[in-house]
């Protein structure tokens, strides 16, 4: 009796399920064209020109969701059924988090191996760098004398008291910078540096990198920390021409040229473990490291191309060449949790 009832329920369930499946399959078959699905931490206004060029060249449609927070959790929750084929991030930290959560898969491509220097990609091809940017010092042209500042360490010295501006110590760019100092000099030295830098701040950390240069221009402080591309964005800003004035008030200083080199970070891409369109995903990464795309990155966003031989934007070139810190970025990324804790310990933002 009971068994019969269960059988009946099962049959009803089966019919219902089949009906649902047919509906869904008929819906999804409409999307069978060549495509690739992207979760991106980089803004659409930045990626659109690149993705459009990719579609024009290959005929592959790119679908994108822009997610800054929660990308990792979304991939995890969607699991093997996730529609995402690849992710784009604006920092090594996030690539590393996805790697540690086992959400990425290896891919081999001789094109990528040729285009990307080995220290800017995962040894097994689980992530690839696309562009690099340096975290540099902006110094007021008059109020900062030549030689007064030449390293990150100088920012924490007594003669800079009340003269330094920076964004929040918890922002991923500053966390990565501190992580690179931990990787280079150890936890204690890094904490002492963070403490010294905090003591030298002209104001509570606030705003983005661009806002710091504005503060230097206005005389609130003499030096600030920022990513290179902000300089280019300000120097060419026709919409807000006052930003050109801010930029012209400061010199670009690449820190630590006499020792480990300037801290650089990457924006990167990785193929997800769940990728259904893996070959298209690899094609997109290959495209993003091609001469064509690297030129767009360089020209539109003033980033340093990862591929050797691609011309820099003339402005970027005018800042001069520099020696980059060559510590493998994954090793820097591993220190990010500790770096965040140090920022807490020295109460950097308060």
């Amino acid at each position, binding site marked *: 009796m009971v068994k019969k009832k269960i059988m009946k329920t099962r049959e009803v369930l*089966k019919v219902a*399920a*089949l009906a*649902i*499946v047919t509906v*869904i399959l008929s819906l*999804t078959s409409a999307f069978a064209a060549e495509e690739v*699905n992207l979760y991106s931490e980089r*803004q*659409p*206004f930045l990626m659109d020109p690149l993705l459009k060029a990719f579609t024009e060249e290959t005929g592959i449609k790119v*679908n*994108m*969701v*822009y*997610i*800054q*927070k*929660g990308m990792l*959790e*979304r991939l*995890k*929750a*969607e*699991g*093997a*059924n*996730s*529609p995402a084929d690849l992710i784009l991030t604006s920092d090594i*930290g996030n690539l590393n*988090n996805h790697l*540690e959560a086992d959400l990425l898969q290896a891919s081999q491509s001789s094109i990528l191996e040729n285009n990307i220097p080995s220290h800017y990609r995962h040894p097994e091809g689980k992530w690839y760098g696309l562009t690099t940017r340096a975290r540099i010092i902006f110094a007021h042209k008059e109020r900062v004398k030549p030689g007064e500042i030449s390293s990150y360490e100088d920012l924490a010295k007594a003669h800079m008291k009340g003269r330094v501006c920076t964004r*929040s110590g*918890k922002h*991923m760019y500053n*966390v990565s910078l501190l992580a690179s100092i931990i990787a280079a000099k150890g936890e204690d030295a890094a904490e002492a540096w963070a403490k010294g830098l905090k003591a030298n701040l*002209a*104001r*509570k*950390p*606030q*705003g*983005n990198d*661009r*806002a710091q240069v*504005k*503060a230097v221009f*206005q*005389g*609130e402080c003499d030096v600030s920390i920022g990513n290179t591309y902000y300089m280019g964005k300000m120097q060419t800003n026709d*919409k807000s021409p006052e930003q050109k004035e801010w930029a012209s008030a400061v010199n670009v200083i690449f820190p630590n040229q006499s020792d480990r080199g300037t801290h650089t970070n990457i924006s990167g891409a990785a193929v997800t473990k769940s990728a259904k369109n893996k070959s298209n995903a690899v094609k997109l990464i290959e495209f993003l490291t091609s001469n064509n795309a690297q030129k767009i990155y360089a020209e539109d966003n003033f980033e340093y191309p990862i591929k050797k031989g691609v011309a820099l934007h003339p402005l970027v070139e005018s800042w001069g060449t520099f020696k980059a810190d060559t510590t493998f970025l994954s090793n820097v990324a591993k220190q*990010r*949790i500790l770096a*965040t*804790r140090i920022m*807490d*310990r020295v*109460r950097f*933002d*308060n």
Partner: protein
Amino acid sequence: MTSASSSIKIADGTTKVSLSWLNGWTLGTIVIAMIAILPIAAVIFISLTPGDDIWEHLMSTVLTLYISTTLGLMIGVGIGTLLIGVGTAWLVSMCRFPGKRMFEWALLLPMAMPAYVIAYLYTDILEYSGPLQELLRDLFGWKTKREYWFPEIRSLGGAIAMMTLVLYPYVYLLSRAAFMEQSVCVLEASRSLGRGPYRSFFGVALPLARPAIIIGISLVLMEALNDFGTVDFFAVSTFTLGIYDVWLNMNNVAGAAQLATVLLLFVLFLVLSERFARRKQRFHHTTTKYKALPGYLLEGWRGRFATLACALPVVFGFVLPSAVLANYSLVHFEVAMNPEFIGYAVNSFMLSALAAILAVAIGIFMAYGVRLRNERLLKVMVRMASLGYAVPGSVLAVGVLVSLGSIDNGIDGFMRSNFGISTGLLFSGTIAAVTFGYLVRFLALSFGSVEASLGKVTPSMDGAARSLGHGPLSTLRRIHLPMIQGSILTASMMVFVDCMKELPLTVILRPFNFHTLATFVHQYASDEQLGEASLAALSIVGFGILPVIVLSLAITRSRPGHAEEEEVS
């Protein structure tokens, strides 16, 4: 909350037919509550998964700072919105002064302004390099920052000011609805017993409006507690900022969920203690006589003061920031006005309208379900279901991701093992997921205002209707809904405007290639380039105020006795 014993008696006294209705209603309420609880349960579940222990580190470093900053923010925003919200609501509901008619709806306008947008705009104006300080330096010949003092906008005080300016309309809206639903007779009784207008306000009207005011304040506090955009931009170390820090910088989602759970318990404690404090009080109206509101005439300086008191919040919360935004939009018109823009606006509008209708329908269903069967289990469940408002948006989004992901993958697994067919993800990454997220987040708004309003309908009404042979549905339709119309409109308006501004849930849950006005603004605002997105930001405000004005007029009309007022004036 108020009709406990009586409605059960009603239920018990009714016929068999309506009893089966009752069961369906209770069952429905339980099912809906359980679905709404899923994402919150998921957050609590995540908090129990293993991860690095964050507590020792936080306690020895920044936890006290997080707590004191958060309490400071809550106290500041709470007092600020209470004073502005209740004060202006009383003025426009009970007094007559120049501009009153306009202020009735104009006072709601700041509601449409997202807090992070206003924060950004005021920073531009008030920071050291902004035009105001520049002007002061020119006027007085100051050269550096050290020569004078000026309040720092990027501070706790600044965050309190920004949030107060855009959040006070919640308190205004709910307390005005409460003042208008109050029977004037009680006020007249108070006056005729020799109390002046002030003592009548503090002694009668205010205590009677307490449930509504409390709901307004608690909505405001939850918004303030969960805010990320403003405190992140100002680098004010609140508890919520700490949650994001642990989650994203320490890559510790379990730790973040633990912090979010603590926040949730804190909110629960506040809500329960307030309920406990007025556990013996009842707020039914005992009379059905409504007359036109008295409209104390304020003349001379009193009238001017009233006008000024109502004008200031509107000017600083809406007029000034909108003017700055409009100015930016002109400068950046080419970037802002792209052809896809209209599509984003349509997406925002449709999604917000859908969520508002659903949220209010579910809110009424649940509130009435509780009224019909006042059982502890039901009350607790419904209370839990409206806790989504107490969780920071992105954290709630993760809860939605995890619960929908499990359902989708569960169905997929079942279908694979039984039929060898993969169904993939049915809900995750769809509009349905976004709508579900909105509902879970904003159910508190609709449920709260409907419940408060229903509480004021005396149970003897239910009794009368039911004894005349009407079932629960018919009683709801013919008695309650017309009586709480104003609150229903209020609730739908609040949910709609909040959905228009909503960001984290939309960003995290949305399908591919899907944009709303808010997400479009976000991509620029996240890089502090609001200029490029100013037209979209202005559109959020514009689309937001449209229903605000329309509904506000409807609310004024919805008051029993309003027609008489029209005739009088």
